[in-house]
C-alpha cells in the first residue's frame, strides 16, 4: 500500500492548506474527529492512492470554518462532526442545524465516559 502522510496545522491555516490541496488535484476522502486531549480533526485526501492527512486540534468553543466552499461534499462530514462532537463548524453549505441524525442525546461523542 502507498504511503500515508500526516501534516499538523493550526486551525487558522485550515482554508489555506485545503485550497493548496484542492489545486493539487486531491480528492477528499474523509474528515475524522477524535475526542482526546481536545477535538482532533483529521482531513484525509487522496491522489493516485496516496493518502494525505491534515490534522488540527481545536475545542468545542472555538469556531472552525467549513471547507464546503472548496469541497462541497464535505457538508455531510462536517454536519456529522458538529452534531456528534459539538465542534462549532461555521458556514457549512448546507447546514442541517443538528438534524442530520435522529439522536435523543446532544453531542454524544463529545462526552468522555
Amino acid at each position, binding site marked *: *500500500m*502507498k504511503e*500515508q502522510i500526516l501534516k499538523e496545522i493550526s486551525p487558522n491555516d485550515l482554508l489555506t492548506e485545503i485550497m493548496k490541496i484542492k489545486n493539487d488535484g486531491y*480528492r*477528499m*476522502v*474523509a474528515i*475524522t*474527529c*477524535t*475526542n*482526546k486531549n481536545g477535538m482532533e480533526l*483529521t482531513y*484525509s485526501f487522496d491522489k493516485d*492512492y496516496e*493518502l494525505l*492527512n491534515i490534522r488540527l486540534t481545536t475545542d468545542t468553543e472555538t469556531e472552525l470554518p467549513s471547507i464546503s466552499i472548496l*469541497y*462541497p*461534499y464535505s*457538508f*455531510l462530514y462536517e454536519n456529522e462532526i458538529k452534531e456528534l462532537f459539538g465542534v462549532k463548524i461555521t458556514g457549512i453549505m*448546507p447546514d442541517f442545524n443538528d*438534524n*442530520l*441524525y*435522529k*439522536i435523543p442525546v446532544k453531542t*454524544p*461523542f463529545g462526552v468522555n*465516559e
Partner: protein
Amino acid sequence: MGNRTIVPFGPQHPVLPEPIHLDLVLEDETVVEAIPRIGYIHRGLEKLVEKRDYQQYCYVAERICGICSFMHGMGYCMSIERIMDVEVPERGEFLRTIWAELSRLHSHLLWLGLLADAFGFESLFMQSWKLREQVLDIFEETTGGRVIFSVCDIGGVRKDISSEMLMKIKTVLTEMEKELKETTSVFINDTTVKLRTKGVGVLTKQMAFDLGAVGPMARASGIEMDMRTQGYSAYGKLDFKPITNDGGDCYARTRVRIKEMFQSINLIRQCIDIIPGGEINVKVKGTPNGEQFIRLEQPRGEVVYYTKANGTKFLDRVRVRTPTFANLPALLETLKNCSLADVPILILTIDPCISCTER
C-alpha cells in the same frame, strides 16, 4: 414556474431495503432538489469502542452491516494488525480474499434483484436472489453463518476451508456462472430495462470526481479507481483490472456491477488455484499503540477504517467512512432535474447501505 410541492420519500418505501428519508422538492413531476434526513438506524457503534476492548470490537465491526459484514471485520482487523505489526499468514490472506469476493458477489446479486424489483420485473428479482442463495449456502458451509460470519480475527481467520470444499466452491461457481450469464443478459439487453436505466441519472467523470463518488458509482463514470489494485490481502498476487464504463448513467452502473460479479468469480478461482498451505492465523499478544488508516474496496466502493490506540486494551477511536456515505452527495446531484418516477431507480443506483452509512 410550475407548481412546487414537497413529497416525502421514505423512510418506509417498497423500494428501500433500509430506511432513509428524502424530502423531494418537485416542480410538477420534476425533482428540483432532494434534502436527506438520515439517522433512523444510527446505533452509535463507533461510541461502543469505549466499552469493548480491541478484540471484542471485531464482533461489533462486522455487525455494522449484514451485507458488507465480512469486509468490515476484515478492515478493522487489518487496521489493528498494521498498528501492532502483525503479519497474517499467507493462507489466511487468501481465505480472507475468497470470502471478500464471495461477499462482493452476493452483494451485487442482492442489488440486481432489488433493481429488478424497483422497475417491477419480479421474475428477474426472484432469479437474481435464487442465484444469491447459492453463495449464501457456500458461506454457511464454510463459516457457519449466512449473514454474519465471525471468521475474521486479528491475526488471520478462525476457520480453514478444506481442499475438498475449495473444489466444491469452484464447481458451484462454474455452474452458477452459466445461469448468471442468462440472468444478466436480461439486464443488459431487455428493452424495458434499457428504457428505465439508459440516460437516467447521468454523472459525468468530472462530476463524479468533484462529488467524491467511489466504487461502481465512480467507475461507471470512467474513473479507474479500485482499492484492490493496492495489493492488500492476497490481491497483490491476483490478475485483474478495475472495471470501468464511460456511460455515467444507471445502465452503465448496472453493467459495471454485472462485470464485477464475473470478475469476482474469476478472482475466487485464481485464489483457489494458488492458495498455499500452512497456518491461517497467528497469536496476537499485547495491546495496540498508534494509529492507522486502512482502505479497502467494499462492494459499494472505498471504505476507510481509522483506528487510534493508546497502549491499553480500549481504543481511543474507531472511525468508519463507508462508501454509501461518500456517494450520497453524488446521489443528491443525480436526483436534481430527474422525473419523480426515476427516483427509486436513482436511489438504488448507488447501492445504498444505510446501516453502513449511519453506524
